[in-house]
């Protein structure tokens, strides 16, 4: 039996983590192939419904990463994201999503090695959790929500 290869989506900001991931590349640090990045201007832009959508579309895990506190290119976007995450985290249980499937972190433009680390740790963690099979439930929930 082949090993389970989780599908992980990374929601990252353009100024810190995207640039940090660029640095991982420039430094030729290897990491797992499971993570694919979507670029946002700022973590403040990330509507957490997108995270639910990703689970609905079959993601097994998610990384949200932006600038460290006080380093936001837009001054406060990352604080809004952090506050949103604290609220959202409490709702995950209700939705039947294991909170460990979302990795929330800060990776600066200078932390290429940290990005590789975040990716590898998340991949290992999700691999242990196994595939996310409840997505149909979430998808149904979203559909119902959309029809209200």
């Amino acid at each position, binding site marked *: 039996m082949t090993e389970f290869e989780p599908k992980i989506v990374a929601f990252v900001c353009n100024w810190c983590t995207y640039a940090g991931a660029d640095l991982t*590349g420039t430094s030729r640090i290897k990491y797992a192939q499971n993570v694919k990045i979507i*670029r*946002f201007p700022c973590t*403040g832009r990330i509507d957490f419904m997108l995270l639910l*959508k990703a689970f609905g*579309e079959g993601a097994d895990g998610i990384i949200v990463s932006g600038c460290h506190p006080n380093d936001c290119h*837009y001054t406060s976007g990352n604080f*809004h994201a952090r506050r949103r995450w604290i609220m959202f985290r409490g709702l995950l249980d209700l939705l039947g999503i294991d909170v460990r499937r979302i990795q929330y972190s800060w990776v600066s433009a200078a932390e290429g090695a940290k990005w590789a680390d975040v990716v590898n740790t998340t991949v290992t963690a999700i691999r242990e959790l196994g595939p996310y099979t409840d997505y149909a439930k979430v998808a149904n929930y979203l559909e119902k929500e959309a029809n209200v």
Partner: protein
Amino acid sequence: MSKIGVFICHCGENISATVNCGKVAEVAGKLEGVAYSTDYKYMCSDPGQTIIKQMIKEKGLDGVVVAACSPRMHEPTFRKACSEAGLNPYLCEMANLREHCSWVHDKSDATTQKAIDIVRTLVEKVKHNKPLSTIKVPVTKKALVIGGGIAGIQASLDIANAGHQVVLVEKEPSIGGHMSQLSETFPTLDCSQCILTPRMVEVAQHPNITLMTYAELEKLDGFIGNFKATIRKKAKSIDEKLCTGCGLCTTKCPTKKIPSEFNEGLGFRTAIYVPFPQAVPNKPVIDKLNCQYYLKGKCKVCEKVCPTGAIRFDQEDELVELEVGAVVVATGFNIMTTSEFPEYGYGKYPDVITGLQFERLASASGPTLGEIRRPSDGKIPEKIVFIACAGSRDPAKGKPYCSKICCMYTAKHAMLYQHKVHHGESYVFYMDIRAAGKNYDEFTRRAIVEDKVNYLRGRVSKVYEENGKLIVKGVDTLLNAKPVEIEVDMVVLASAGVANPGSEELAQKMHISYDAYNFFSEAHPKLKPVETNTAGIYLAGACQAPKDIPETVAAASGAAAKVAILFSQNELSREPVVAVVNRSAPPLYSTCVGCFMCATACPYSAIGEEEIKDRKGNVIKKVAKVNPGLCQGCGTCVAFCRSKSIDLDGYTNEQMYSEVMALLNE
């Protein structure tokens, strides 16, 4: 139906070594909506760009995905190429195959598959891209400089000499700032007033500079190139046009015992006063808080003696509105207040003074005409102690930072004392001598070697009075931490440089950020030292952190250069990545319900209100409106909007959702 072109770059071997580029191009070509796909060795090269341009024209492409390096690297290159071929540049996206795929994975089918996934994601995004055009905003070529110390003076003169209009606003009755209070300057010991006052006069006479003294910023609205500033001109109670500056009123004023701000409380001034003889403008103001007429309703001596009838007791504050394109903030610093050093006896013993007070004592224009005399009895101090780091580098009681200028001015003070009191003895208690700067270390050495100033490495624990003498208890850490007790006549504290009171409020008025110590923050500590996070507002001098004069002047000229660069353009082009509130047909007009959550979230105060009116002018509803000149495109408002009425061009909900869906559906 979209006609998208996908262009896969090999980047020499950087991508093709681990990704099968041919395969990616082949699969991409079969994606829905893709009209053309190819791979090429160097897409960014001239022939590479030519392929893109040719195909846009030949196939009539309405979207382009270039799968190559990071968009942070070459997005402008490829967008420019698209634009040259007649395609809106914002219909071009980049898929990052190099930094995010080929360089971080080994060669395998999975790596190629990831590359395909990335390309597919961006193809889906491009399908929802809209043509955008760069935002053009006009530039008002007039600068506002806040603060008339050496920083503001330098910035104003530089901008004015570049041919632009400048309004210089100073809250005190005269420009000059702290530099005008100084006796002599390190490391050359040239007289501060001698080098400063010609500059002050130049400001007053410059045809491009409008000087507003006794005035403060009341309000600042708008954005880069288009600020609206409201200045409060405080009532001076004189008619400046009639006043000749003869000074008769100041000599006759009966209220003579007001501590002089300029002399740091060591001298007195009258209620109608000019802060110092070389003041610019050299015209008096009436201090309403101390004037007998304003306090008791009688006196008017100044009015009686004024030969030109320039006194105006009924004058009121005036609000002046200005349209400016750029703002230079040069509000300077202050020194730590008295109450913070009970152990040094400041405020308790009159002969414990601050460095700035010592400057006044040593200054030829000061209350003692340049003789070092102690404030209590006017005697010449035979022994004097200087305490460095009074409040600086003291996380427990003072400020954790180094105030930077104190080591140098303490050496200067000790030197000036030795030059003026030849038989005197001077001691300096210091933690470290920080004299980094051109000719700085040589200067402090000179104080120690030539002028025989006694430097003791250690801190002072207590200063107290005994038999008319001040006893300084300290420690000399270079002598096995031996306790030291010195009986002296005067103590000078090198108090920490701190932010001006009210700087927090001022920063909030201008929407610029400030640090934990209320110093204004630069946009980047290294690469944008004079810019703030708000475009069009620049910093000069010690309002940012303690700075010496050369550094302040350099920063001021830097800020002036930034203003001149801004003013070299008639229009500013801005990236059209801005938030937009949707509009729809009546009766809805917009799905915005006017909750203004977005406005509270916006870090730039870019969101305001818009009233939707019917033909009769009745307000139907209030909705949010984004000012594209202020919006920086972070999108925080978009995630906040509960009715999904606000969206970010370039990163719309449609684009982001289709990316998520494409990424996960092979």
